[in-house]
Every structure is written in structure tokens, then in C-alpha cells.
């Protein structure tokens, strides 16, 4: 498996002082695939996304290892072979420079090209993401763009240097359904066009179902389940994945009771010694409260649950 890995992450940890928010994540991203990181607010998705680029917030310490195939120094590849579309997309654009200049500067930061050549690439990238009249719009400032156009410009910025990996943190969360589909389409097209892998961070299981090849379901800074998204969402084996799926509104009798999980996800400074999901898990037993489960391979995916072997269909326990 690691021989195929383009990006390989081992025992990644991110902590603020004594409090660990990302607690030992391991996964591989393969060339050209869409790899989703899914989980609820506070699970540690954004910290993980930023750690992949070596861009954690001030005051954070990291542990573990992130490797990009064929590169000795990951930091040198940032913005080049690996790029980020941040959760707060606007922060990726400077308000005081025309959008085209910013793209051209990004191009010239990694390639020795003339201003004219860099500019042509910038305009081509804007055109590729569907900005109408790209040559003229390249001279405009971000605030002269509509929200949807800005989102596209940020995607152009992340793909203009034809990276191997694009990390997109909640690229669609603030958008309504139509715009969400548009942005995901643009991301998918750009990924195809430049041949990049996409690490797609989202809390939306429907987005994962539609767009991801493989998925890592994250809870309280750890992986609950990792595998092909069809498998994981079609037949979850981790109770958390099952609970999350069961709580989605389904087509069914109107207003049937949704199986809601009790409580809320835990804060990183309030974790006990056992499985982080135990306080909300209807399947928890005594060992669950004492020891955190290790991930192991079950049914073609990795599952971190003490009862992964005896629970062949945890979804049944929720509905």
C-alpha cells in the first residue's frame, strides 16, 4: 500500500500545550484520487489539513511524519507540488492586488517565466475555472468578484502550478446547493486537468458519497474508519460512522424519528482514557471506557473499535 502512496501520513499529532487535538492519524493518499476527511466540527480536520502543508497555527506543536513521494523537503513543495484551498477561502486572496497579479506571482514563485508568460498562465487558469472574460477580469480586485467567482479564483490559485496534491478545506460549506455543485464540479475538472490528487475536507457525507474514492472518518482527533468510500458509507463498520449516517434525513415516511446520537462531540481537553465515542455510543461496554481502541483491518477497511469483529452491521443498532 505505501508503495502506491503519493502522500503518506504516519502518526500525525497536533497539540496546543498539553492538549492534543489531532491524536495519531495515519493514512495514504494515492496519485489522482479524491481522499475525503470527514467529521463533525472540532474533530481536527482543519488542523490535519494545515499540518499536511506544514502550516499549523501559532502555538501548535506537531508530531509524526508527512511525506510526499519524491521529495526530501515538504516545506519546499508548498504552493508548488501541494497546495491548500483554506476553509476561509477569502483569506487566500489579498484584497489589495488584482486577482491576475496574484496568480501570476504564484506562477513566478515556482517557475522562471517572464511577466508576460506568467500573466498568460494566470489568465488561462481563470478561464479554466469558468471566469467569464478572464483577460479583463484578471485586472479586477477580489472585492469586484461575486462570491462564486472568488471561490473559483481561489481554486485557480490552488491549481495554477499544476500540483500533485490539492488540499481543499470545506470548499463548499458556506454555499447553497447549486453553488456547491458548481464548485465541486470545477474542483473535479481542475483535478483532472492537472492530474492532482484531492484531499477533500468536509463534514458532509453526501459530498463524500458523490465525490470521494476513499474516506477517513474522523472523531476527536482520531480515525474511526478508513477505506473505500462506497464500502465505508454503504456498510459502515465503526459505530460512529453508522451513527452519523443514521442521523441523516432519509427519503422515508415524512417526519419519522431520526436516530439522533445523544450529546455532542467532546472537546480535546475533556477526553477520558477510553474510546472517545464511548459516552455517545449505544454499543459501548466496560472495556470501551478504559482503553482506546487501536485501528485494525476489518472487511477491507481500517476500523478503530473494540467490537469491530462482533458487530458486522452496526447501522442496525441505530435504526
Amino acid at each position, binding site marked *: 500500500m505505501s508503495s502506491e502512496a503519493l502522500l503518506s501520513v504516519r502518526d500525525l499529532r497536533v497539540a496546543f500545550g498539553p492538549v492534543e487535538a489531532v491524536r495519531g492519524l495515519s493514512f495514504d493518499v494515492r496519485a489522482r484520487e479524491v481522499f475525503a476527511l470527514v467529521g463533525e466540527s472540532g474533530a481536527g480536520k482543519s488542523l490535519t489539513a494545515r499540518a499536511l502543508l506544514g502550516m499549523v497555527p501559532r502555538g501548535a506543536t506537531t508530531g509524526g511524519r508527512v511525506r510526499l513521494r519524491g521529495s526530501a523537503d515538504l516545506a519546499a513543495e508548498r504552493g508548488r507540488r501541494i497546495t491548500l484551498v483554506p476553509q476561509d477561502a477569502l483569506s487566500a486572496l489579498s484584497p489589495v492586488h488584482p486577482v491576475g497579479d496574484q496568480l501570476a506571482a504564484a506562477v513566478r514563485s515556482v517557475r522562471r517565466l517572464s511577466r508576460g508568460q506568467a500573466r498568460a498562465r494566470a489568465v488561462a487558469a481563470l478561464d479554466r475555472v469558468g471566469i467569464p472574460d478572464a483577460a479583463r477580469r484578471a485586472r479586477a480586485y477580489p472585492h469586484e468578484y461575486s462570491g462564486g467567482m472568488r471561490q473559483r479564483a481561489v481554486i485557480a490559485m490552488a491549481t495554477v502550478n499544476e500540483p500533485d496534491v490539492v488540499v481543499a478545506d470545506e470548499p463548499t460549506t458556506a454555499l447553497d446547493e447549486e453553488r456547491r455543485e458548481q464548485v465541486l464540479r470545477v474542483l473535479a475538472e481542475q483535478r483532472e486537468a492537472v492530474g492532482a490528487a484531492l484531499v477533500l475536507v468536509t463534514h458532509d457525507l453526501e459530498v463524500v458519497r458523490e465525490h470521494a474514492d476513499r474516506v477517513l472518518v474522523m472523531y476527536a482527533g482520531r480515525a474511526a474508519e478508513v477505506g473505500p468510500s462506497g464500502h465505508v458509507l454503504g456498510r459502515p463498520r465503526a459505530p460512529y460512522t453508522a451513527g452519523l449516517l443514521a442521523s441523516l434525513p432519509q427519503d422515508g415516511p415524512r417526519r419519522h424519528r431520526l436516530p*439522533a446520537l445523544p450529546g455532542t*462531540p467532546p472537546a480535546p481537553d475533556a477526553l477520558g482514557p477510553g474510546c472517545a465515542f464511548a459516552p455517545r455510543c449505544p454499543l459501548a461496554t466496560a472495556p470501551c471506557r478504559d482503553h482506546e481502541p487501536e485501528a485494525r483491518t476489518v472487511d477491507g477497511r481500517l476500523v478503530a473499535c473494540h467490537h469491530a469483529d462482533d458487530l458486522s452491521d452496526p447501522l442496525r443498532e441505530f435504526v
Partner: protein
Amino acid sequence: MNSPLLDVRDLVVRYGPVTAVDRLSFTLDAGETLALNGPSGCGKSSTALAVLRLRRPDGGKVRFEGRELTNLTERELRPLRPRMQPVFQDPYGSLSPRHRIRDAVAEPLKVQGTWNRTDGPARVAELLDRVGLDPSYGDRRPHELSGGQCQRAGIARALASRPQLLVLDEPVSALDASVRAGVLNLLSDLQDDLGLGYLFICHDRAVVRHFADRVVEMRDGRAVPA
């Protein structure tokens, strides 16, 4: 047949030259959920504000419990206001950060003049219990609650004045799936028990399909075929 709880006819809302709601009509019965669905900026929230008369419509009529609201003065509206209550999207923004939860829930009772020191606190505890919050949460301030708990507190506050109509503007959009399910279940139970009418504004189609009896699909301020 009884008249509907809410009857909106040819509603128009303008902001300067922009027409946000353009001759929109719908009715809502007690015990029923009508969803307004559509992309951002299509006029859903402007409709909510006009129904609640937090904004005076620029045209059309809004009848609530058989009374025409359009030309009422603020003073004439006052006795009707408690019967139609909003619940907004941002669970933290809709409660004052400085007030304890129990004071936020008591406030509508005080405004209405139905608060008294002997039964008031018990009524607040009952309301918190009703929305599935342990009454001990009453001592906390909004930032000491989770998003779902805060949204429940907002619903408790809306229920305090015994409304017939709740105008729910994206009430679950800010919540995670596992928490959202609990709030949707709560809204269903309250509707069954109290016969509330819900005007339910939501851009998430799966939630709308699950929760609403009927849907008005909106584009550019108008109803369009679904």
C-alpha cells in the same frame, strides 16, 4: 372550514430598487410545516421578516389567525407578537452573550407581563425541560453551551410566550448532523404536542423532504414550480 393560520397574498418586499420578494402567495395551517426552499438571496429571509412584521411589506397582505396585519400599527401588533415567534440560524447570535439562559427564556414572559416570582422560575425550568435541556443549564451563558444546546435554548425562549406560529429561519443549518437530528426530532414532537404551525426556511433539500408537509420553491423572490 377554518381560515388558515397564516395567509400570505402577493407579498412584495423591496430594498431600494431591488425587489427581494415579488408577489409571493402561500397559506399555512395550524399543525403544518411549510418550507421555503431556494438558493441564497432568493428572498426566503425577507419573506420571514415580512411575515413577522419585523419589516413592513411593500405590497400584498399577511393575515395571521384571520387578522390582517399589513396596516396595523406597532401598538396594535403588540398583543399578536407573542403568538408568532422567530428562531434564527445562528444559535449563539440569537441569544444575548451576557445573559444567562434562564433570563433569556424568562424575558418574553416579563415583556408580556405574565412573569411572577412564584411560578416564573418553574415555568422556565419546564420550558428548558421541554426542549431537552437539563434545567441546570439555565445558569450558563450561551458560550458555555454547544451549538445544539444553544439552538434548543432559543426554541425554549420562542415557546415561552405560547406561540401558534414559529418562523424558523435555517434553524439547523449551523448544526452537525448528529446534533441536527435531535433538534429536528424535538421540533416534530413540539408540533405534535402543541399544534404549532411552522414556516420553515431551509436550503437543504434532504432536510426539507424529511421535515416539511409542503414546499414553496423560490427563485428571485418568486415561487417557481418545484
